[in-house]
């Protein structure tokens, strides 16, 4: 049995609000990497050194210094079950690296789960702020404020020439990784996605699919992030990401309009077909569910389906992950059993709560 609030609810409190452009941008995230000057990086730290780092950094929260930023809970990774860790990863609150490989790892989590501060990940300190919709500037402002509080209590490894020093040379300088998670089904359906994404990589940004490094874009969800951390200021990095993401949003909107003008029936059929399958299927693997949920989300955004909310779909996205399924049904499952349970959960969510399962068609 778990005692942690974060594993009870798939949808973090912060995800319940609609952000700007929430039809296309699911969330905005900023992560800032920092290290302490007089400690070796986690990679080479001894157990005792890692423990000292953890004590020093968790103290900042436990002594109430973060109070102005909300209320926080400190969670020591070694106190968690494997399942709890997995759920945290599936909710994007901690990285797989912190869950599986850290020594004296900890996470300081805000009540609404929009702030997660990882300790002894690849760097001593990683501050992550998540906002719903397109609010990348807001995420940076919050992360920077939390950074200032930690800086008062800790001597950062900072060099006048190289900036904030990090374990990996790809993070040095600002230590910032800003990203937006975008749902781009119309660009995929109209075969424009490859052209647009390759243009994106040419302006110093990276694109990856949801859930896991290097995985394909499951459910038409793409994460666009800055690649460069040195030589540009944080504001330049944020502005660049913002303006590129803004352009992608406009392309996606235009493509959606075109879909509705040029192949309305085909689009409606695709959406309703997926809605029907999700509402009645008995077996649903993760890949199919991601794709069908993408269709249904598009249908909701286009007004084809009126009884499905983005929140329901965001929730399903997390709930249908393996760890969360196991947590919900409180049992060990084979992949096949997971596919039964996933189908059951989706049916409940789509038909159980609202009306009698009829899409308003």
């Amino acid at each position, binding site marked *: 049995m778990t005692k942690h609030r974060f594993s009870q609810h798939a949808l973090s409190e912060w995800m319940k609000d609609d952000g700007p452009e929430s039809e296309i941008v699911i969330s905005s995230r900023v992560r800032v990497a920092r290290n302490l000057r007089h400690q070796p990086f986690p990679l080479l730290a001894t157990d005792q050194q890692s423990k000292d780092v953890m004590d020093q950094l968790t103290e900042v929260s436990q002594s109430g210094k973060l109070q102005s930023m909300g209320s926080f809970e400190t969670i020591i990774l070694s106190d968690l079950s494997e399942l709890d860790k997995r759920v945290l990863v599936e909710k994007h609150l901690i990285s797989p690296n912190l869950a599986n490989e850290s020594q004296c790892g900890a996470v300081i989590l805000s009540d609404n789960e929009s702030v997660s501060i990882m300790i002894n990940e690849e760097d001593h300190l990683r501050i992550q702020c998540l906002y719903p919709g397109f609010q990348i500037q807001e995420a940076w402002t919050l992360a920077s404020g939390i950074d*200032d509080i930690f800086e008062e209590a800790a001597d950062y490894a900072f*060099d006048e020439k190289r900036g904030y020093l990090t374990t990996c040379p790809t993070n040095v300088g600002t230590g910032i990784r800003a990203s937006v998670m975008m749902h781009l089904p119309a660009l995929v359906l109209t075969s424009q996605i490859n052209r647009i994404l390759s243009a994106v990589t040419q302006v110093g940004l990276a694109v990856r699919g949801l859930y896991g490094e290097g995985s394909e874009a499951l459910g038409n969800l793409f994460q666009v992030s800055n690649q460069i951390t040195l030589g540009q200021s944080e504001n330049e990095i944020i502005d660049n990401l913002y303006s590129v993401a803004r352009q992608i949003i406009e392309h996606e909107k235009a493509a959606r309009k075109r879909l509705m003008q040029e192949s309305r029936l085909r689009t409606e059929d695709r959406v309703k077909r997926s809605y029907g399958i999700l509402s009645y299927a008995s077996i649903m693997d993760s890949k199919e569910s991601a794709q069908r949920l993408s269709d249904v989300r598009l249908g909701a955004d286009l007004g084809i389906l009126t009884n499905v909310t983005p929140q329901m779909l965001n929730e399903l996205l997390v709930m249908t992950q393996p760890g969360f399924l196991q947590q919900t049904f409180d049992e060990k499952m084979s992949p096949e059993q997971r596919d039964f349970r996933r189908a059951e959960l989706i049916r409940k969510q789509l038909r159980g709560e609202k009306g009698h399962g009829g899409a308003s068609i």
Partner: protein
Amino acid sequence: MYCQECGKKPATLHFTKIVNGEKTEFHICESCAREKGEGIPGAPNSFSIHSLLSGLLDFEHMGSSGVGGAAKQPVLRCEDCGLTYTQFSKIGRFGCSSCYQAFADKLDPLLKRVHSSTIHSGKIPKRSGGQIQCKREIEQLRRDLQAKIEHEDFESAAELRDRIRELERKIADL
């Protein structure tokens, strides 16, 4: 163009997977796409930034020591954490903040390739970076001062000069 899966129908689904700049293109027909779900057939395994980095670094290492020259070179090592440059080349990570000093001579080409730059121009820590912040502000004020003088706005120039002096005193006290 024909479908790369069945080779029979024209390819209508074009998809490029891009991970950290590495592109793989897929061209398949609709029925193959449907059959495979939305999975992209033949997608290669994930590509890690660290393996790319260590590739760059290895190259760096070979270039500087030359063929067969490695043995004669003294071992470049960070005194604080003990990490050698050769180890750093393999894992693509630093061991501690002093590594940046220890390997300083070799870092510029690497950082230039990764970031197209070698010098930080972002945020500075408030407490420990007070002096750096003052220096940057003084540089900016000097540029402003120059501009005011060129425009013969001597009143503003005098104000800027006073501000610069004030900051210089502050640095001396820090």
